[in-house]
């Protein structure tokens, strides 16, 4: 079940500590609610065109906003600030260590709006803030499966309980690939609409292998064997070999698995005796990469079978020097 995040207090914002905030004015209103994943630059909003200034969005003041306000005559500026702050915005972040003028702070204070000052330039400030907000507000879902990085591809191994997902993943880790999450992977949609998977903090780096119990992959294999998060590229579903079911024999099936409205390529892999799953998965990923770059082995085979060898006399006729006769 996907979850929509509710609003969050400005002061509780994840990643606030990484925005290089150096001063805070009107501090007592840091509990204002932010409920929009994108920060906003007011721009024309300061001139009185307020139609698109949305409540719940953090506002960013850069050199433009500061310069414009400073260029106004006192009365004019007072009117602009009053109209703007009357929208009850959750908070203003001023970039580039620009010091807010006393009348901005006073106008913001009358409408319970805190002003934070950041050392960062406007563009990196907005991109960092957006990344944190997106992750917080992103739609999230828990999936049953093991997420691994195999040759740079994010691969989710799914399948019924006890089919051998963790054992296969352990073999893959042993081959040098990275574990992101065992058994339960949490996915969220990032700002690029990519599905990013990560482990729940409680079970990060852990794997359950029947007979061994819970093991810590980081402790056993080192930090190169684990990753914090990874964008999902491919789902490989392990299932019991069913002789009646038709499996892809040519490699031309294009199946998809839907997560949070996105379609992710899916491969159904039957598990049977004598099948070395980790090797098959490794090859499946290599083949997936080749297919992505346009290589389709089954199409090359589909052209008519090559003609059998020409008769001996024809061969002679085309041989170089045969016209000498």
């Amino acid at each position, binding site marked *: *079940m996907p979850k929509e995040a509710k609003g969050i207090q400005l002061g509780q914002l994840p990643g606030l500590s990484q925005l290089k905030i150096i001063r805070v004015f009107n501090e007592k209103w840091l509990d204002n609610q932010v409920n929009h994943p994108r920060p906003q630059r007011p721009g024309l909003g300061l001139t009185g065109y307020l139609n698109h200034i949305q409540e719940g969005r953090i506002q960013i003041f850069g050199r433009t906003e500061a310069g414009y306000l400073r260029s106004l005559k006192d009365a004019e500026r007072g009117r602009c600030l009053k109209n703007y702050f009357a929208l009850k915005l959750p908070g203003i972040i001023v970039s580039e260590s620009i010091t807010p003028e006393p009348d901005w702070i006073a106008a913001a204070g009358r409408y319970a709006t805190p002003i934070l000052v950041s050392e960062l330039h406007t563009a990196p400030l907005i991109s960092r803030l957006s990344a944190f907000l997106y992750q917080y507000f992103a739609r999230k879902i*828990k999936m049953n499966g093991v997420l691994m990085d195999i040759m740079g591809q994010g691969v989710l191994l799914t399948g019924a309980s*006890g089919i051998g997902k963790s054992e296969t993943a352990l073999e893959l880790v042993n081959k040098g690939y990275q574990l992101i999450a065992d058994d*339960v992977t949490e996915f969220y949609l990032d700002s690029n609409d990519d599905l990013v998977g990560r482990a729940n903090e409680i*079970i990060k780096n852990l794997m359950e292998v029947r007979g061994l119990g819970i093991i810590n992959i980081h402790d056993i294999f080192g930090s190169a064997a684990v990753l914090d998060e990874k964008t999902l590229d491919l789902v490989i579903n392990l299932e019991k070999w069913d002789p009646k079911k038709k499996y892809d024999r040519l490699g031309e099936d294009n199946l998809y698995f839907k997560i949070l409205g996105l379609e992710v390529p899916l491969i159904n892999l039957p598990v049977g005796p004598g099948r070395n799953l980790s090797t098959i998965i490794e090859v499946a990923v290599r083949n997936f990469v080749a297919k992505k770059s346009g290589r389709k082995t089954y199409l090359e085979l589909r052209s008519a079978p090559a003609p059998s060898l020409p008769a001996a006399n024809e061969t002679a006729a085309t041989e170089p020097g045969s016209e000498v006769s």
Partner: protein
Amino acid sequence: MIEKKQQITNKLGLHARAAAKLSHLANMFSADIYLIYNDDKVNAKSLLGILTLAASVGNEITLQAAGSDEQEAIRAIGELFDRKFDEES
């Protein structure tokens, strides 16, 4: 599909050992069994999944089962909760 609300009464809540007993029991049934807590739904057959719930004493979770032996599964798992995972005598 059937559901049952279940109170967590053992002191330690769904910690590792209780989660191990729970997932071991759930694996004996062919039905799909889920635990739902705080909008989170996890497979009861997955030990790590149960751990991610971080449910503790006094919390109420929902057991959900679907399959041919769903009745037996819910009853057996409910009893395990009621017995406080055999941890306290």
